[in-house]
């Protein structure tokens, strides 16, 4: 009798599991969110002729890093757990040289550290919450200049010694606008030289802001929009990444609009991007219809778009993830492509 009971329970349980699975399948096939993801009817990738060959690799203690600069074999990267930027020595000995960030800079507010493209010996340290940007010589621990914004800013790209292209808080709350700003002396001596008519909703339309010659590109992280702006920050054209994802994640305001948060954690569509010559390279997180699942989930996928041809998709590079780990950052400089993983930095040569 007991055997019968056990078997009956097992069969009932299996039937319930089948019902739940069927329901999940039906829900996936019919729900509007999934439809929104595939509004364009899915997409297909094609492999590009570009190839990557490993040039160097560096071991790191497991952590969270972002690449700051790479110049003639000298890699500088930020260690988020420490108050320092780290450099690998130029002698390729792979020994680590810590470069402490000057104590006057509020480390907890650092949004991003980038190489200074006007003076290569300096680094730009952006502290968005403080609305400050520091130009620092990390090797001598010397602060060369402090730029003080009079409003929230982020993703600053240095154009000259005193001008930056960046996203600034828009006229309406929760909006950001690309702008070019000029600095004088002191916090209030900032002049907005140009402001884009493009309004981006904070968080929902978060993305990456990069420069291509005189143009600027804003690539959304959560859908397929690729805004290409001219030197006046007017919209030149709206390109699309190939993933066909149109929806934007929804946010909710809490505590009298002082806190905004996502209703549900959104899935990143475009994780990283960079401009290489006239090509925009985008690290996509979305599987195409013709991607083999087994290959796709083990690969870093880099989609390429021709910026001279209206942002047209030209092909994809697939390269194996190191130990299946997720990428933390990518960086391009002088024919070298750098991949940062939690415990490894890989430097690839790129060839056509």
């Amino acid at each position, binding site marked *: 009798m007991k055997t019968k009971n*056990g078997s009956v329970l097992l069969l009932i349980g299996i039937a319930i*599991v089948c019902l739940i699975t069927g329901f*999940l399948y039906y829900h996936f096939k019919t*729900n*509007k969110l999934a439809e929104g993801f595939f509004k364009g009817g899915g997409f297909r990738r094609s492999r590009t002729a570009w190839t990557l060959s490993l040039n160097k690799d560096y071991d790191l203690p497991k952590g969270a890093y972002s690449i700051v600069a790479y110049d003639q074999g000298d890699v500088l990267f930020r260690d988020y757990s420490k108050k320092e930027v780290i450099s690998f020595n130029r002698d390729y000995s792979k020994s680590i040289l810590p470069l402490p960030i000057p104590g006057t800079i509020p480390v907890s507010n650092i949004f991003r550290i980038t190489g200074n493209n006007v003076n290569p010996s300096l680094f730009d340290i952006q502290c968005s919450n403080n609305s400050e940007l520091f130009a620092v010589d990390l090797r001598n621990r010397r602060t060369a200049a402090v730029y003080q914004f009079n409003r929230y800013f982020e993703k600053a790209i240095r154009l000259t010694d005193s001008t930056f292209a960046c996203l600034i808080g828009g006229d309406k709350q929760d909006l950001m606008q690309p702008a070019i700003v000029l600095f004088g002396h002191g916090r209030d001596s900032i002049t907005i030289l140009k402001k884009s008519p493009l309004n981006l909703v904070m968080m929902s339309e978060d993305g990456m802001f990069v420069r291509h010659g005189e143009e600027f590109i804003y690539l959304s992280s959560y859908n397929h929009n690729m805004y290409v702006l001219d030197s006046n920050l007017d919209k030149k054209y709206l390109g699309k990444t190939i993933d066909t994802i149109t929806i934007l994640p929804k946010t909710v305001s809490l505590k009298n609009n002082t806190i905004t948060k996502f209703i549900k954690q959104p899935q990143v569509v475009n994780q990283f991007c960079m401009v290489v010559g006239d090509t925009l390279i985008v690290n996509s*997180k*979305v599987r195409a219809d013709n991607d083999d699942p087994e290959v796709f989930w083990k690969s870093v996928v880099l989609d390429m778009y021709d910026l001279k041809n209206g942002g047209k998709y030209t092909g994809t590079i697939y390269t194996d993830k190191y130990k299946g780990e997720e990428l933390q950052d990518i960086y391009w400089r002088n024919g070298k492509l750098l991949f940062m993983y939690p415990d490894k930095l890989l430097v690839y040569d790129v060839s056509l």
Partner: protein
Amino acid sequence: MASFYSCIPTNFWSMTFRYKHSYAITFLQCLVFFLYLYSGITKTMGFGLFVNSLDKSLFFSDFNTKFIGTSVIAAEFAIPVLLFFESTALYGYLLSFLLLLLFTAYIVLMFQLSPFLPCSCGGLIEALSWRQHIFFNLAFMGISLLLFFNKNKKKMVVQ
């Protein structure tokens, strides 16, 4: 001269087998017990991340993912509790098998249909590849089913 083997009780070999069998069963029981305890603890400790990864899944859009997350954790903690008592262990193995069957079905669905693969397993299990994940689940499904039938048989013998 009496043979050496004649000194050995006639049921020695079957007893030895039974002891070995019993050790193996105890070992498998411990594996299942600690798997769910570990999984439940890691999910509870990273509850925010767990719910975030459920949020990212297109299979749970429009669903209350906090409720789903809490239910999964509750089920995972229920299994070691059920296994702890002799009288409820049978239901523990059954729940273990069904939960793993559901997880595996979900992984296969996600692997084949979803454009994203958010993993919500937590801890060391999250480090497995998707293929390894499926094999891992199948192995534990087999263990759970074996223990379930073993327990069920014992109950029948007792009755």
